């Protein structure tokens, strides 16, 4: 089993009876998971002394009245809960507990695009650089490029993003003055945060691709392709890589989670006005309704994207199609 810091990655999906039945089942479990997350976070917020759902709290009366009306605090608990759920279903994540006039939806609309840019860039860097390095290492197994890749990837999986980010900032921004140290807006601002965030997953993907590529290269059909006289580049890039990157697709689920939680840190280091920075700020400020709303938002995004990854995986891996009901 392939592991990342002790977390087993599910590199073998369960075999679906038919594609459609599998998709329906998967969708159902995703919706159920979102519901559990909403319920658990709702209970957490109720359990917090001095939290938004306690009636005694020191906040401006205008906001207090707002919160009490919005969350139906005069009603029994189960009605509050059902009301909250129905708001979430309609896409309304509620007002801020600390700042008048701010809503969670407004915060997301303003800040999520920034985090999305950073996340997408990180994702692309990690996949392209990781897969590239892994393929090269596998092709030059036991030689310098292989050792170099393994050396750097070993270091890479042991350097947390906040260390890598701070080091980059010190050298590239303060010492050599190559890149701006903070803020957001131009492509030059994106380079350091994206590298800081992509470092660990790139290293992991390189190792993953290398071992899976070596597996594929040793299989019979590679020898067949060679015996048929196919050109080497075609064997490698068309026949081998296509199968070797299947584990990488499965890893993209955990990668998404990593990029998301990593953004909490990296956006803070580089003062990027994204959603991750705001999440951490609202933890500092004890802005509980925003914490609640953003947690639900993050969960929906992740559970949804993970579902897409699972679908993509079942579509891409020919072994799964073969075992399905389409024969």
């Amino acid at each position, binding site marked *: *089993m392939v592991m990342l810091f*002790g977390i087993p990655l599910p590199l073998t999906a369960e075999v679906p009876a038919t594609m459609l039945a599998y998709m329906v089942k998967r969708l159902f479990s995703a919706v159920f998971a979102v519901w559990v997350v909403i319920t*658990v976070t709702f209970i*957490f917020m109720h359990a917090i002394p001095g939290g938004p759902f306690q009636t005694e709290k020191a906040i401006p009366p205008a906001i207090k009245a707002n919160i009490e009306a919005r969350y139906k605090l005069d009603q029994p608990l189960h009605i509050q809960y059902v009301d909250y759920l129905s708001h979430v279903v309609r896409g309304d994540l509620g007002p801020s507990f600390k700042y008048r006039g701010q809503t969670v939806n407004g915060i997301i609309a303003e800040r999520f695009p920034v985090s999305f840019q950073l996340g997408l860039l990180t994702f692309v860097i990690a996949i392209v650089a990781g897969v590239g390095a892994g393929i090269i290492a596998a092709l030059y197994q036991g030689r310098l490029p292989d050792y170099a890749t393994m050396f750097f990837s070993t270091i890479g999986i*042991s350097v*947390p993003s906040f260390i890598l980010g*701070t080091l980059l900032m010190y050298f590239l921004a303060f010492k050599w003055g190559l890149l701006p140290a903070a803020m957001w807006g131009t492509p030059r601002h994106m380079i350091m945060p994206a590298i800081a965030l992509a470092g660990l997953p790139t290293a992991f993907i390189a190792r993953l691709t290398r071992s899976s590529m070596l597996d594929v290269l040793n299989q019979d059909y590679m020898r067949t392709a060679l015996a048929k006289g196919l050109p080497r580049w075609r064997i490698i890039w068309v026949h081998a890589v296509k199968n070797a990157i299947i584990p990488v697709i499965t890893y993209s689920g955990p990668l998404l989670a990593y990029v998301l939680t990593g953004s909490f840190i990296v956006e803070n280091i580089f003062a990027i006005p994204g959603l991750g920075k705001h999440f951490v700020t609202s*933890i500092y400020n004890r802005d509980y309704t925003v914490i609640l709303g953003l947690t639900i938002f993050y*969960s929906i995004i992740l*559970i949804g994207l993970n579902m897409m990854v699972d679908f993509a995986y079942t579509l891409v891996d020919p072994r799964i199609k073969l075992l399905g009901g389409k024969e």
Partner: protein
Amino acid sequence: MQYPVELFRPIAEKTVQTEMVRPSITYWQDAWRRLKKNPVAMVSLVFIVLLILVAVFGPYFSPYTYSDQDFDRRNQGPSSEHWFGTDALGRDQMVRVMHGARISLAVGFVAAVTTFFIGVIYGGISGYLGGRVDNVMMRIVDILYSIPFLLWVIMLMVLFRELFPATGGGAGLYSIFLALGLVFWLPMARIVRGQILTLKEQEFALAAQTIGAPQWKILFRHLIPNAMGPIIVTATLSIPEAIFTEAFLSFIGLGVSAPRASWGMLSSDALTSLRSFPHLLLFPALAICLTLLAFNFLGDGLRDALDPRMRK
């Protein structure tokens, strides 16, 4: 009836030992033998032992404590008096890094132990009973898995921060223990369940069943000991994960409270004065990276040593 005395003489020894018999070695001796042959894992093991010694005894040998402030010596670089320099409040950085090692190792150890107990019991029961029980138990794990464990830990820390307000700086640490304990057993439960599912079909489990061994005894005395290899590897690899999580939490302000020092907190403090005093980042950063590296290498080495499939 009389027996001649000659019949009771032992047979000469050399006729008995005709063939060479290798002294039998246990699974654990074999694993240790293989681990010893892995230089990277052994260096990591030595590093971890040294780190534990420094974390436990180091602070007693320092003339300073982690909270001693000296306003005449703020933000100093490394010197013979303060080997790692001093921070913005004139505190000795070396003793603070050693204190951080205590916190990180404590967090790692507690995470590994809770992972071990909760994960093994949960996964073992799920895998052994199978059927509907297994379905429900694993569905719960799947749902908890569906959002990143860091998000769970953050939510729990937000809750614990108010439920157990920090008194004297200690409570933050216990909240971290509790939050990690509640979340970290998930991968272990999955792995143990997978192991038990295959082990329970094997002959020795069936044999135990036919002689009437009670269910709990089959599970805990026969099946789980046979899954110990993967269990130990998973527990070892949960240590760096926990250390990283503590650093992460401290970095976003949810970790231990001042004046205590953890590595994540030291790195986060260093960030504010990075331009002028980069030495403040150097030592905590090195400590985190080397420790994560050592535990990851040791975990990999243990996996190679304990996995019988690798045996040639």
